[in-house]
């Protein structure tokens, strides 16, 4: 008989396979000029999926820029993720009925989301909510002030926060060994007086265990946990990067031997929870779902140019009326010309 945990693992695998396929197609869209610069999550599927499975609807998610799997599990449609990376801010207007309704949007500046996450956790604590905040970042982000400032206040205020580091060994071209002399990134929790945990970022089961515990600890009012998930960035930094300039092919080859998607598939198959037929069926489903998302994305109506002014303030200030009118008039001319 399947347990709840088995169901969760299978659901996790399906998400990881879906996002792996989505990621490949997103890179292809960029290569063919139909998507902007895109940050791949190749190799981070287990981390993003575990985060999405461990969070509840009442929790808050504060992403960085590689968290497509988590946002997908929070209810952001794949076409909307493409819309964001396609250069359209409407992609950050997550659906009002989704778990992501209050989540922060993708964060491109490094680590700035972490102090904001501490602010969200303060708000949740002030309102006595049984909710946790999960914020993510990469290994490079641990060198920034925001990272330490967020952990420091979270420790002293005992905030319901979990900071999850995707340590994929690279900050663009700078390896983890050049970021810090700390033996581990989890060690940085010591300076904030909070627990720091290392976990295998390619192991969905281990990630779920660590994140479930850390989030429940946060919801129970017991404070903040720093989680370092150790993975390997199997992609370039983004589609604008060429990792062959700085990463040894042999290192990449070795990392692929431990990649998270196949590893979970093999484990599930050994337990009788997955097989070749299911795999074939699911891969077909992934292709259909992603193709539909791409089709929806490519057929989205363009945003009116005036959108750049219309959401800046709660109401358009009188001082901007002339600029808006000029922009609207030019846009009309373009459409009619």
């Amino acid at each position, binding site marked *: 008989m399947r347990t709840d945990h088995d169901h969760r693992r299978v659901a996790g695998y399906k998400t990881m396979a879906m996002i792996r396929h989505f990621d490949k197609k997103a890179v292809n869209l960029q290569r063919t000029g139909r998507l902007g610069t895109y940050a791949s999550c190749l190799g981070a599927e287990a981390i993003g999926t575990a985060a999405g499975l461990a969070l509840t609807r009442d929790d808050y998610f504060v992403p960085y820029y590689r968290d497509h799997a988590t946002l997908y599990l929070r209810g952001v449609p794949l076409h909307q993720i493409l819309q964001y990376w396609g250069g359209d801010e*409407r992609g950050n*207007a997550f659906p009002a009925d989704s778990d992501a309704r209050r989540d922060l949007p993708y964060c491109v500046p490094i680590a700035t989301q972490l102090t904001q996450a501490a602010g969200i956790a*303060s708000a949740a604590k*002030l309102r006595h909510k049984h909710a946790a905040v999960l914020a993510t970042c990469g290994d490079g982000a641990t060198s920034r002030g925001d990272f330490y400032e967020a952990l420091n206040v979270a420790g002293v205020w005992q905030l319901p926060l979990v900071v999850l580091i995707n340590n994929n060994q690279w900050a663009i071209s700078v390896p983890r060994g050049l970021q810090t002399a700390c033996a581990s990134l989890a060690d940085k929790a010591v300076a904030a007086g909070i627990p720091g945990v290392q976990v295998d970022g390619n192991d969905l089961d281990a990630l779920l265990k660590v994140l479930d515990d850390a989030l429940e600890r946060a919801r129970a009012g017991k404070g903040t946990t720093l989680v370092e998930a150790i993975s390997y960035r199997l992609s370039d930094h983004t589609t604008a990067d060429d990792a062959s300039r700085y990463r040894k092919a042999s290192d990449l080859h070795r990392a692929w031997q431990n990649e998270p998607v196949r590893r979970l598939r093999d484990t599930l198959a050994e337990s009788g929870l997955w097989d070749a037929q299911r795999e074939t069926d699911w891969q077909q489903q992934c292709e259909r779902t992603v193709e539909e998302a791409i089709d929806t994305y490519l057929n989205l109506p363009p945003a009116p140019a005036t959108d750049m002014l219309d959401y800046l303030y*709660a109401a358009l200030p009188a001082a901007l009326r002339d600029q808006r009118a000029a922009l609207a008039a030019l846009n009309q001319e373009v459409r009619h010309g």
Partner: protein
Amino acid sequence: MAELQTHGAHAVPMNLLEAVNRALVRAMAEDDSVVLLGEDIGTNGGVFRATEGLKAQFGFRRVMDTPLAENLIAGLAVGMASQGLKPVAEIQFMGFIYAALEQILSHAARLRNRTRGRLSCPLVIRAPYGGGIHAPEHHSESTEALFAHIPGLRVVMPSSPSRAHGLLLAAIQCPDPVIFLEPKRLYRLKRLPVVADGEPLPLDTCFTLRTGDDLTLISWGAAIHETLGAADQLAAEGINAEVIDVACLNPLDRDTLVASVSRTGRAVIVHEAPRHGGMGAEIAATLANQALLHLRAPVERVTGYDCPMPYFQLEQHYLPNVERIVAAAKRTLVY
């Protein structure tokens, strides 16, 4: 004079600092989503005492002493505001706000826009600014133009107790992020009547403090004090200057400025900040564009010099004073 003081039945005399304190008390009492955070704002009541008594009245959960990190204060405020709180953060001195600039510029000012209205950022960041109190280095800057340049922000600079009270109430109620710069030179200058239960003031208009037909003096914040002094001296010589307190630097009420200068034909802009790239340049460009044929003299600027705010032995040489303003006014009159 015609200064917009409200002398109502409930008006009580208070200085600018007390007006800030009273506005904070009232905002917190009326709306439990208003919270304060900053360095030394709790038991100590802030280094200038703007938050005196607030921790005792509202508790440490709503009056938060933060660790000493300005970037953290701004990041916390962005996170709180994104989920419906109305944080009023204090940066102890404007000279220390720059660590928070990334949070203000890249996040607070952009959150509504980049989520297309899904989230918003109704925060207020208060900071005492400006010179003239013999403060240590890095305690006397006037860098409002940095913030006025950022789309999505509102930048507000009161120049009297009643406007500090009414504008701060409005800033806290405002759904947009507001940088609220308090002229610390005026904090304890004098007590003037303030209606403590009065209405918030609008954030999108200038305040005409004094009407006149001969020229328009345009200023904001602490320099209003010297500008009004210059208007008095000019009046003694039979010259009637209109005095406009811009008060809200972004978005800017161009209409009031253009209408006044179109009538008087002469304008002197007074600000404490350095001249180059200052808000005076934006206003002068607006006047050149929209009031050119009414101008009877070039627009004059009386400002700080294009140098770092001097340490206090030289600060009186740097700050615009009555003599410089009167001299500039007379240059426009004899042009």
